[in-house]
């Protein structure tokens, strides 16, 4: 009754989802090597391109990992499993904790692989910088874990893949994980309101500033504050239906 079994099986299921896992882990690596490989001696925004692009791909890969893992809920719903759980004593909180842990456990190897790829292209950072970058990324992922869960509650199982893909690409593109396209004016002000902007900035923040500016923490916190009740509403709406 402790919920430990549920958490363990949720993680087991996540790692048995081989094809999804393969795409999640391989996609950022393929993109990274094909783009940074040919530009390994270039410099962007004052840092080496392999380092610059590594931080973007880390954000992209981790976003994909968390949104798609949370989104697997849509499959549970379409099979009727989510509803079956409602007639067991399992606490909704345990269910939530399991989903969040599973999402992080996929995000961690995704990050590690991109960092390793960076190292093979000559990226070299101190331990403190690696740790800080990882820490900021993990905090910045909270809104994306919530978005994955909300998506899982809202979309039907067969629409999950395009929904995850669309959401991640939009946030990655506007947030600058694939390259900074919005560097001034109103668009910059807008993209700075996206959690993905700060996710993509995590690497640069660790390198250059030592931290996110207050604005970064505020944006991530604001998205979290808005998304938590939305996730709860989506959960309840889902439960009440039928």
């Amino acid at each position, binding site marked *: 009754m402790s919920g430990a079994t549920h958490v363990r099986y949720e993680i087991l299921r996540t790692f048995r989802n081989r094809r999804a896992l393969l795409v999640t882990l391989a996609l950022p690596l393929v993109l990274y090597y094909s783009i940074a490989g040919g530009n390994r001696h270039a410099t962007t925004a004052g840092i080496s391109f392999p380092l610059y692009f590594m931080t973007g791909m880390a954000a992209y890969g981790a976003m994909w990992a968390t949104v798609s893992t949370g989104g697997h809920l849509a499959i549970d719903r379409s099979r009727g499993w989510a509803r079956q759980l409602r*007639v067991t004593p399992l606490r909704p909180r345990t269910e939530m904790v399991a989903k969040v842990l599973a999402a992080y456990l996929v995000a961690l190897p995704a990050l590690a692989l991109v960092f390793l790829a960076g190292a093979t292209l000559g990226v070299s950072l101190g331990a403190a910088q690696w740790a800080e970058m990882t820490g900021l990324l993990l905090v910045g992922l909270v809104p994306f874990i919530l978005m994955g869960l909300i998506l899982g509650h809202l979309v039907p199982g067969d629409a999950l893949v395009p929904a995850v893909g669309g959401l991640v690409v939009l946030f990655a593109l506007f947030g600058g994980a694939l390259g900074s396209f919005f560097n001034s004016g109103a668009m910059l002000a807008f993209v700075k309101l996206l959690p993905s902007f700060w996710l993509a900035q995590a690497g640069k923040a660790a390198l250059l500033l030592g931290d996110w500016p207050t604005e970064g923490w505020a944006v991530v916190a604001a998205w979290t504050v808005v998304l938590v009740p939305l996730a709860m509403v989506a959960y309840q709406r889902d439960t009440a239906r039928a």
Partner: protein
Amino acid sequence: MTGGRQSRGIELAGLTKSYGDVPAVRGLDLAIAPGETVALLGPNGAGKSTTIDMLLGLSRPDSGTVSVFGAPPAEAVRSGWVGGMLQAGSPPDLLTVREFVTLIASYYPHPLLVDDVLRATGAGELAQRRTTKLSGGQAQRARFAAALVGNPDLLVLDEPTSGIDVEGRHEFWKVMRGFAAQGKTVVFATHYLEEADAFADRVVLIARGRVVADGPATEIKAKAGPRSVRATLPHVDVGSLRALPGVVGVERHGDAVVLSCSDADVALASLFARFPEARDVEASGGRLEEAFLELTAAASDRCSEEAAR
């Protein structure tokens, strides 16, 4: 479980539930004593599943109350008193059958042994198989094992054997009986008449969102209006047959007569007393199917009358 809680049973009182403008349940009352096995019998769209959803706390009634062993349904579910087998409640993907049943067991305070339950439900040979690689009958066995493994006091099954062959159904109910024999309360929805007849202590007939008949299967059959008695009885006039106690109508077909009876037992007794020459006597007890059609049709008539008013 405490004796106090067990003695409370299950009470559904004045339940109504609509989906938009469509009423699904319209004033349903039902009290179930602990240890009873009750069938909710009714055609598709009668309100059985909606009633079950409210009993399990999956949906909230528009009005009326549900009490499960003295507690609101959500609390009963949280306490592990309830096991449910929903119509479309497939096991999660990416687990084996054993893992699935073990997972469900982990949610309950006093579960049964997973291996015992797998064996009893015939899911033992499927233990290592992935839940997504099961046939309909196999998936049903896995879900059945999951419903039992929590060792709940109340087991609620929504059309548990739909799509299962006769043999599978037979096996299912054999195990179910063993479970019910331990004093468990079982409520199941079905539209298989023979299943309700064979396995329930009590049949609750639901039509148009209301209880239209409630009692042992035999009692429901008796409500099916006149049963008929057929006999070979030449040279007796129809009027004197109609005068027999328990007889409400007579038809003659050559030498044979068919008596429609308000009480077939009385009619048979008086027939033999007055006309000992009667031969080839056959009493056709109203079958459950007839009772079912008749009672549900009566309910629809009442509804259309109400709608017309």
